[in-house]
Every structure is written in C-alpha cells, then in structure tokens.
C-alpha cells in the first residue's frame, strides 16, 4: 500500500490528506448545518435544500458581476457582501416557502418530502429560465485562489482555509444562537412541545418561520462558499442532497454536535479511502459504512437516549 513512497512523502501524504479531509469536513458541515436545523429541529424533509444552496451561489454570481462592473477596486472583498446577501435571499425565500407551504404540513413529515421535491423542480426551472441552462462562472478574487506552500510537497489551498473559517464562524454562530439566544430557546421549546410552547406565549408560527428561514439562509451561505470549489448551475443542488441528509441522519438528527461529529467521521473516512482506492469505490464504501452503522445504531451517532 505504501510501496514506492519515501518517509517524507508519506508524512506529506498524511498532512495533505488530513487537510483534504478537513476541507471535505467543512463542506459537509456547511451543507448539513442548515438541514440539521430544518430536519433535525423541525422534522421537515427539505428536498429543495440543494436549490436553496444554489440560490446563494447565484446571488454570489450576481454580486461578483456587480462588483466587477461598478466597483472593480473592491472586487477582492465582494465575497463577504455576497455571503450576507446569499443568507438574506435564501432566508427570505425559505420564510416565504414556510408560510405558503411547509406550515400546513408539520403533521405530515413525509409529505414535506414530496412537496419540497416539487418545489425543487420549480426552482430548478426558474434558475434555468433566468440564468440559462449552462453553468455560470463565478470569478473568485485572486487572493482566494492561491495556496500557501508549507514544504515542497505540502501546499494548503487558501480557499480551503477560507471555507473552514466560514464553517467555523457559522457553526459557532448557530451554536450560540441555538443555546444562548431567546430564539434558540423558543425553537427548542417548540420542538419539544409545540402545544405547551404555544400555551406559554411563544408565537410558534413565527418561530417556525424564522427557524426555517435561518436553516435556508445557512444553505445560501453554503452555496455561496461552494462557488469557490464547485459548479453553479440549475441542477447543481441535487449533487449535494443525499450526502447532506446522510450526514444529518448519521449524526443523530436532533443534535448539532452530532451533525458536526458525523461530518467529521464521514469526510475523514472518505478522504482516506479515496487515497487508496479509486474515487467511485471510495464513495461506495463510505456510503455502505454509513448505512451499515445506521443499521446498528438507527438513532445516529449522537442522540440522547430518551425515556419514551
């Protein structure tokens, strides 16, 4: 397995694969955080999650064009504004969708799957009609596309670091909001006992809308970040949806920490396997492992053992 590599190469392998795993980890966390809120906390199976991400990517694209056109001097910094706008756009769309559709379906979680699937078809077509069927190229500021050479062999991509930083900020932000803010308390109250939460004066409808909106908004930020590493097209969102659900489910749907731990486990497994096997087989093995573990531990990696 390690034939033909020198020791220094081996250590470089591990360093770089470790970093590759970490970038994959950040990607998974970004994809999954929004869904962990929507699916884990609200029980809504949002099949249009990928399309909310792509909305964020398109917003980033528009902002990049705007900056290139009108404020070329500030182009290096457009990304930060783009991420905020992506959050706002996806979040607002999410709240609208919650109001029009999702709130009527809380008692039928499996039906949310079908309805949001319909929504995803509609969004894809809207993107296609608006931006064209082709992928759009989002130009990334130069400073973000370079890399830092640590040694001859080990180079760390800056956009990887950037994605990691974004992930860290958002994950911390969500954690703080969830466990420290009034909204977080309200969300958790509504999740645990909707009737009682309503009875003690929480506007459950508003809380739901806000929660769904924030979940979608985070998806938008993820989409914005992914323009650095992936493609932006009408159907690109579908690439992410299965992996995203698996990460959330594997982590134990109700636990944010679980989501992060599961993203870590899956990404490291995949990136290690990818190095020694071909890409396709690595993917198959990773998925099989996850499914296998889920069969042994259906409640996911991190879930409270609850009194029924």
């Amino acid at each position, binding site marked *: 397995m390690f034939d033909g*590599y020198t020791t220094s*190469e081996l250590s*470089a*392998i591990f360093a*770089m*694969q470790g*970093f*590759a795993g970490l*970038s*994959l980890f950040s*990607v998974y966390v970004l994809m999954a955080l929004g869904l962990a809120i929507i699916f884990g906390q609200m029980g809504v199976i949002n099949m249009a999650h990928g399309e909310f991400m792509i909305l964020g990517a398109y917003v980033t694209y528009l902002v990049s064009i705007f900056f290139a056109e009108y404020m070329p001097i500030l182009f290096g910094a457009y990304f930060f504004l783009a991420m905020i706008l992506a959050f706002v756009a996806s979040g607002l769309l999410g709240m609208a969708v919650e109001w029009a559709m999702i709130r009527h379906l809380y008692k039928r979680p499996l039906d949310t799957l079908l309805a949001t699937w319909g929504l995803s078809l509609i969004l*894809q*077509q809207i993107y*296609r009609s608006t931006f*064209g*069927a*082709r*992928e*759009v*190229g*989002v*130009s*990334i500021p*130069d400073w973000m*596309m*370079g*890399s830092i*050479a640590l040694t001859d*062999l080990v*180079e760390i*991509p*800056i*956009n*990887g670091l950037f994605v990691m930083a974004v992930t860290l900020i958002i994950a911390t932000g969500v954690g703080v909001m969830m466990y420290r803010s009034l909204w977080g308390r309200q969300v958790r109250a509504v999740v645990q006992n909707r009737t009682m939460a309503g009875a003690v004066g929480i506007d459950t409808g508003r809380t739901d809308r806000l929660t769904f909106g924030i979940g979608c908004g985070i998806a938008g930020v993820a989409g914005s970040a*992914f323009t*650095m*590493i*992936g*493609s*932006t*097209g*009408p*159907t*690109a969102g*579908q*690439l992410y949806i299965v992996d995203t659900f698996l990460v959330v489910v594997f982590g134990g749907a109700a636990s944010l920490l679980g989501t992060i731990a599961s993203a870590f486990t899956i990404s490291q497994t*995949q*990136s290690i396997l*990818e*190095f020694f096997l*071909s*890409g*396709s087989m*690595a*993917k198959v093995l990773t998925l099989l492992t996850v499914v296998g573990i889920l069969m042994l531990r259906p409640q996911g990696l991190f879930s409270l053992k609850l009194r029924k």
Partner: protein
Amino acid sequence: MTKRPDTETVVTGPSRRGVLMGATAAAMTASLFTPKSLRAADFPTAEVNTTGLAVTDDAVTIGILHSITGTMSISETGSVQAEKLAIEQINAQGGILGRKIEYIQEDGASDWPTFAEKSRKLLVNDKVASVMGCWTSASRKAVLPVFEQHNGFLYYPTFYEGLEQSPNVIYTGQEATQQIIAGLDWVAKEKGAETFYLLGSDYIWPRTSNKIARKHIENFLGKKVLGEEYYPLGHTQFNSVINKIRLRKPDVIYAIVVGGSNVAFYKQLKAAGIDMTEESPLLLTISVTEDEIRGIGGENIEGAYACMKYFQSLDNENNVEFVSAFKEMWGEDMVIGDVTQAAYLGPWLYKAAVEKAGSFDVDKVREASPGIELTTAPEGYVKVHENHHLWSKTRVGRAQADGQYEVVFETADLVEPDPFPEGYQ
C-alpha cells in the same frame, strides 16, 4: 435516382450576406439573393418523399432532440442553439430542395428512457425526415434501436468513444482515436512528456478514451502511465486525487472529467497550487470546450491544453462568419465549443446529402452521405467517411484567461475516422 445535374455535392454554407441580413429578413433573403437555391417545384413531393415522411411541397420537418432540462442541459444547450442557427441559415438560402426546414423540438430531460420515448415520438408520430440530437453516449445507445427499427436518420454531434457504426447515424463529432492520438503524439514530441496520469469521470467515454490513450502511450509511444482513476459523475471533491498527482509527479495529467465535476476539479487544482501555466505537470484534456470554461472560469484553467477538432478562435473565414452569426442570434456573451460546432454541421450535412440524393427518403440519403464534403464548415473542410464519421483535423489549444483557446497545433491532414481501431482493443 433522380439526381439533377445542377445539384452539387459541395454545398455553399451560409452566404455572408444572408447572415448579415439577420434572422428577420431570412425568408426574403433566400428567395431574392441566394443564387444557388433550388426550387421545390423541380422536385415534386411525390418523387422526393416516397416513404411518408413529414415533407410537403414547401417544408420538411426535422426533429431536435436534446436535454433542455436536467443535468445534461448544461452541455446540450449549445448544440440546440447551433442546430437552430444552421436551420435558420439554410432556410435563408432557400431550404432543402426548395423546402423550408421546420423543426419539432423535444426534451430528452437527461434521462435515457425519455430519449427513447421522444425519438420514437419524432419518428413514428411526427414522421420527421431526420433528427439532430443526443449528446451522451447513453442517450445515443438508448435511441439507436428506435432509429434502426423505424429507419430514422440521426446526426449525432458529440465526440465519443467510437466502437459503433450505425447505418442510421451520421457522427459529426470525432470518434476517440481522432481526438486522442494526435494530441498524445504532440505532447510526447513537442513537450517531451514521459509520464502520464489518467483521470476521468466514471462512465464509458472516459474509460474507453483512457484505454485507447493508455495503449497508445505504452505500446506506440513507449512512455509510462503512472495512474488511472475514475470518480462518479457529479463528484465535487478532488483534493485526494490532486494529492496523489502531486506525489506521483507525472509530466502530463490527462483529464477526462465532465459536467459539474469539471468545475470543481479545475478550481481545486488551481487552489491546490498547481499552476497550469507552468506546465509541470502539463494538463491535457479532451473534455473541456469553451462552453465548460464559462463555468470553470478562464483564470482557473489558464495554461491547460485541450485536444479538439474545433476552437472558437480558429482563424478562418468560415469560422469568423459562423461565430458572428451565432452571437447575433444567441447573444454577444455566447461561446462556442467543439460539440456546438459539430452540431452546427448536422443540418448542413443533411442538406447536402438530400440534395445529392435528390430525395428525402432515408435510404437514399444514407446512400448519398459518404463522400459528402463541406467546404464551409467552421472547422474547415470536412468529408463524410464510408463509416459515417467525419474526416477532420485534430487540433491542440492552450486555454487563455479570457476563456478562449489559442491553437498551438493542428494536424497537417484530415485524420481518418476509425471507430474500431486495431491495436487499441
């Protein structure tokens, strides 16, 4: 056969004037200014259409069958646009045998059974005289039995893996050897490449192409392949393979990554500090046209080499006209890739074949097709081979930051299509 003396096998392409007049004046242009137009009255419908195709005294209906929804619509949109442009130009010149081309467009929806369904609809229900369509090999394989059963005629635009030669298909793109061999020879000779790393999306075209590439590298060039890898279609994380490449230090990365994966691959390659302009390693691809670069971003792929038969930057009169007509019809920001150009050839080749045969009957068109020449093709002179593929040149282009290729090499002669290459099986 009712072959008229004035029907030549060499057909003029779009007249410059017709193009400049634009789409709106097309019909008028055709009748007034195009000297070579044939009059339908000279070709009575009963004679030129003996098999009940959708051909009337003043129109012939053909089908356009591509994915305009689903993942493949990213790639196939360009083909649809090129075909529509060609149809419009042909109509402006008076159509085929004096008949205007009308088309029925169907959506294959990136789903192979849907392609089969729609092709059957076009052939059986609409009785279209021919079909411009398909992009992926899978969609072509799905419709092939339908075309053979109902004796339809398909113009297929994509470069593909070869290993096929259907009497009901004209392959206007390159089969694998046409695209691969000259490029590898060039990179070995001009760039002194000794070692190669083969990489691709996981399906038949990249695998077959890499098989041919490997045979050529090892058996004919006597060089070395350091690794060969495939990733699922739609895969977006390439850091691991980039690490492997970095460790193996090949002279050439031979990449056949397609679709959305493409964008991820090149962005990550760039971000990982592999600067393709330094050419160590050098990247050679057969799957990135100008169309794909739009998604990837020119700055992310600058310095990579692509091996195609057509680049938008080709400097010849035909191409300049074609590019400006395309942009006029579809917008200034459009780019044109290899397959788009090949799709553009379809209607023109069909026109030539029908007029050579003097009939729309599929059997006669088929018989007339080999030997058809187009001097007006944007890629330059092409000719239909006995095996239904095109003779065409192979070119190597170097990607520029503006998303265009600079042509750095082209074969001196047309390369013979060889869908079943000996020694590469």
